[in-house]
């Protein structure tokens, strides 16, 4: 029984069957990649996991509890954090404030009317946030305007913000898309480090085979809305079906 169980999930948009009969199990503590050509339904699947979309059929359970019908923030509070394709951070806020928000969310839950207390005097939160910044090697950027950082730093901050909530499952949506090689490698190292040092499950949707094969312990190949194969990276590399459906066209990677 995996930490995330996807059973018979289907989703239709008008005439397009985006997902059909998707079955997937992500083992606790693993790094699981979901790959597939454009339009294979990767993003739709991800959106079904985080509450942005509700599948027409099937079930999605996280640690045995259904996530279907729950709002994104509720699913997040269950222990699933999401990293976006383009880093989604609070650009108008300082880096420290960015980090404090998930700390509050972890401690106080989805809503807390703390309108009178001073944010800068909350020792517990400040310590946690500073600790997380240290962890992410961003302590020196503490007071920077988040929007003014490089893309790589934004990505790093976003991942840090997700980790600050101590999620059991981290979902990443093409985390290296549009990144320079050096930034990509940094991100790979960071994720490896996270996986090695924390009791966390990582599910990653990725286009870049270099990233996938550097990180993943298991890979699911999605094509035309349905899982084609699921196996270890080594087996996937040589799998004829995968070559046919996917790798052939993306040999450039």
């Amino acid at each position, binding site marked *: 029984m995996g930490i995330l169980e996807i059973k018979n999930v289907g989703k239709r948009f008008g005439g397009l069957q985006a997902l059909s009969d998707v079955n997937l199990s992500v083992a606790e503590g693993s790094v699981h990649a979901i790959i597939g050509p454009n339009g294979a339904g990767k993003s739709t699947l991800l959106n079904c996991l*985080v509450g942005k979309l509700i599948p027409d059929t099937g079930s999605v359970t996280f640690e045995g509890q259904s996530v279907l019908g729950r709002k994104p923030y509720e699913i997040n509070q269950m222990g699933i954090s999401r990293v976006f394709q383009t880093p989604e951070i*609070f650009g108008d806020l300082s880096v420290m404030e960015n980090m*404090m*928000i998930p700390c509050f969310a972890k401690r106080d839950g989805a809503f807390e009317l703390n309108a009178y207390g001073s944010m800068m005097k909350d020792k517990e939160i400040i310590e946690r946030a500073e600790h997380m910044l240290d962890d992410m090697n961003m302590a020196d950027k503490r007071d920077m305007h988040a929007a003014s950082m490089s893309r790589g730093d934004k990505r790093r901050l976003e991942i840090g913000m997700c980790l600050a909530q101590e999620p059991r499952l981290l979902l990443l949506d093409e985390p290296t898309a549009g990144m320079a090689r050096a930034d990509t490698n940094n991100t790979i190292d960071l994720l490896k480090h996270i996986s090695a040092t924390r009791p966390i499950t990582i599910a990653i949707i990725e286009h870049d085979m270099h990233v996938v094969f550097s990180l993943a312990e298991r890979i699911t190949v999605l094509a035309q809305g349905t899982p084609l194969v699921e196996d270890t990276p080594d087996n996937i590399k040589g799998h004829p079906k995968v070559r046919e459906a996917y790798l052939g066209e993306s040999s450039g990677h």
Partner: protein
Amino acid sequence: MLGLNAKDFRLLLLVTILVVFAPVFLNPFPVDSAMAQFNAGYPDLMQRFVIFGIFAIGFNILFGLTGYLSFGHAAFLGTGSYAAVWMLKLLTINVLPAILVSTIVAGLFALLIGFVSLRRSGIYFSILTLAFAQMAFALAASVLTSLTGGETGLQTALSDPRILDGAAAVAGNIPAPSLFGYEMRATTTMRFGDWAFTLNLGYYLAGAFMLAAFYLSIRITRSPFGMMLRAIKSNQQRLNYTGLNTKPYMLACFVISGMYAGLAGGLMAAMDPLAGAERMFWTASGEVVVMTILGGVGTLIGPVLGAGLIKYMENIVSKINEATLHSWFAFLPDGMEDAVVALIYPFIGKGWNLTLGIVFMLVVIFLPGGLVQGGQKIAGLFRRKKSAEASTKAQTPAE
């Protein structure tokens, strides 16, 4: 001090000094000099400064922090006024219950309207709030006349029951709103040579409320709640995916902001027991938007400055008439006097709106951050002159 950092405390101190000594600062010219026209230190205008300051501070909590532009905020001010006048009519001429009830009623009204309007964001939210306010105005001015006094407005009357102190009224005259017997209009004039400064009880009561409101707005801005509101403005999606429910945050903010408006409305009624429907018209909502932007959106002190500037124009510039102009320029030769008067005349008196429009444009073109930015520029000039101490501190938000 008071749970504020040094910088915020200094700001609060500055505002406190301004409020306490406003009767002096606003009357810089001797009473009988030609410039006395520009004195603004009389009770009504000073009351308006602080009351509209409260309104704008409250509006800024919503708009400045979350970026949600309510175009119907005057509805809460109006509701607060009606509630306050009804309290003055039915319960007691003491203003405290009226102010309290006006804040609560406006808060409840905001809860209702916010609950519906916050289902949408951006321009759709703005239009929803506008639509609700316009409906409130239209109904108050017509169908609900028995409740609101219609277009004429709701006033206190000789026949009001006033359960608590109705009997104590002086025969033949409606009692003036008071605080435990001290009338809001009670005024003392202090004279220093040619200068006169007017101290008014109502002003100081409103001023005290304004300081409390200002202090509270600093606390809110610096609180975790305030940070969440700024986070909503910055990236609502990320906030949702960080396990935070934006809805109650927005609603709480909307209600708080509405209560500020209600407090302002209640104070207006306490200073002058009249509540009219036009307080809810869209132009009144637009006015607070303009005050906030003019002063500086998202800054603590900006909205108060914006409110002050607009009320000053409305009450001082509109009162300068042609005769006043002639008296100012009487020292010039006749032809020149007429020419100068003719040149200035379109901008004052009945032309005060023109001046207002020009000021709006000049401020927004040359001071993109509003009056606060103008102040910072001036302060910056002084600082540079003093020394080259470069204070490259990190950008503190919401200054």
